[in-house]
């Protein structure tokens, strides 16, 4: 049963990659938005980092990962569109009749977001090094581990938001708010130490905080895998909780397909 489930999820994921390949415009937003904001904020980050004691910093060490993390949240909106458009296409009902469970549809269709995120990070980090002199300094596997933990967290959040939201409009509105909130609180716009004290206090409750902290220790402190263990563990742990919650909610709402479309 588990293998059949995985087979169906994998078939859907492959199919979704094909759909994404037909229209990669989400990637433009995911890549261009952080690059633009990096251009504006890098000089300010440089002064702040120098004050913090990183005399050789050029600002990109914070700006590049910070803003990539912040805009990576938009995959949640894209994931929402990907899921809700199945209702508009009337294909959701067909998937159900084909024996695919709601959880499998949601997991299969959101898994390719991992790929989208990998391309986003690779492009922004790559262009960041060409345009803004960004260097990883620390261990690439450590950066990869932080990325993977964050990406899993975002996929889990997408599943949960879909389980909770009734329409794609709701999901997009909520995601936009969360992007600014988690990005700002996490230290993407100004480093956490420069946030107002109340914000500093709640900052560790946001995923952005842990992701940016993990990336900073790689780019500014030259850290290796063991130094990012805490952020990776926190992100992975909360991703598991979100995904479990989403699965439970989706399991309880097998008639989710009825929304939006007539009868089906």
């Amino acid at each position: 049963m588990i293998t059949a489930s995985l087979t169906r999820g994998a078939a859907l994921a492959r199919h979704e990659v094909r759909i994404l390949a037909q229209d990669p415009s989400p990637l433009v937003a995911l890549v261009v938005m952080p690059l633009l904001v990096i251009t504006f904020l890098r000089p300010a980050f440089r002064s702040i980092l120098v004050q913090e004691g990183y005399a050789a910093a050029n600002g990109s060490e914070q700006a590049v990962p910070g803003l990539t993390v912040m805009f990576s949240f938009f995959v949640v909106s894209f994931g929402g569109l990907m899921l809700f458009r199945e209702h508009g296409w009337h294909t959701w009902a067909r998937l159900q009749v084909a024996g695919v469970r709601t959880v499998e549809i949601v997991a299969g269709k959101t898994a390719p977001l991992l790929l989208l995120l990998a391309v986003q990070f690779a492009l922004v980090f790559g262009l960041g090094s060409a345009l803004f002199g960004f260097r990883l300094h620390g261990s690439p596997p450590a950066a990869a581990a932080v990325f993977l933990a964050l990406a899993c967290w975002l996929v889990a959040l997408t599943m949960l938001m879909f389980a909770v939201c009734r329409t794609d409009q709701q999901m997009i509105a909520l995601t936009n708010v969360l992007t600014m909130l988690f990005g700002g609180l996490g230290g993407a716009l100004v480093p956490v130490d420069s946030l107002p004290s109340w914000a500093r206090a709640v900052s560790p409750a946001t995923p952005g905080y842990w992701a940016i902290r993990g990336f900073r220790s790689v780019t500014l402190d030259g850290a290796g895998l063991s130094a990012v263990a805490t952020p990776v563990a926190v992100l992975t742990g909360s991703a598991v909780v979100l995904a479990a919650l989403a699965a439970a909610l989706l399991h309880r709402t097998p008639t989710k397909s009825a929304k939006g479309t007539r009868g089906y």
Partner: protein
Amino acid sequence: MTLHIEGVHKAYGDRPVLRGVDLRIEPGEVTGLLGLNGAGKSTLVTIVAGLLPPDAGRVLVGGVDVGRHPHRARAHLGLAPQDLGIYPSVTVRDNLTLFGRLAGLRGARLRERIDKVADALELEKLFDRQGRALSGGEQRRLHTALAMLHEPRLLLLDEPTVGVDVATRSRLLQAVRDLAADGAAIGYSTHYLAELDTLRATVAILHEGTIVRRGTLAELVDTHGRAAVDLTFTERVPDGLDFGPDAVVRGATVRLPSSDPAKTAAEALGLLGAHGSAVRSVELVRPDLETVFLSITGHLPQEVAA
């Protein structure tokens, strides 16, 4: 695989649509589901596929209760809903591949099934076209093909021939007959009665929430069909003429059901008096499924389709 519908009720809000539907379709049987617009054909089909819970009653597919075990019941079920459901931004082949894989097909077997349904529905030349680049009838063919890929033992087709050209229609009907010959039970909703003859289908007429007629074409025509006279006027049916309680007026035509149409025609013409010159044609109608349908619903099926 037998489909067994027992006492199914369904209301949308406080508006009842199905009021106790009982229907059985046996393996190898094609059943044409007929009814006016809004009769509840699509609602019934959606309930059978387990996509909509009935308010009361139950549906058994091969003995498995759809409400209790939707996944087991669906393993051998295919549904092409009335609303087109295809992926517009990927190719015909990718659409077929996805649903084939979801049914557990792979490799040579997957290719073989895709070729088979593509042949049955004339999709070969369209393999590399995106779903959105197909014409309406082509989309309908792909939509139907997706339901037949896994050789379902119970196939539900909700108006599959809407917008499909004559050549494709006959191939589609042939494909449906082939599936039935292999032992599949088939529920087929349509407004085109001639298709049921081609399909050698049995008939179920859904009217005002229940199945009011059920049987083979011949049985229904023998027991419920009445011959009739169609009086067609040049412009419209003149006011102030009383053709009796059974007369059905549609546009410029009055249908007068009768067991002796020649006599009825003579009587009717006598009744016309001065309006006689306004008659364009008089036609004797033999009993057929249309007359059965009309006598129950007051409408002709092609009026519903139009």
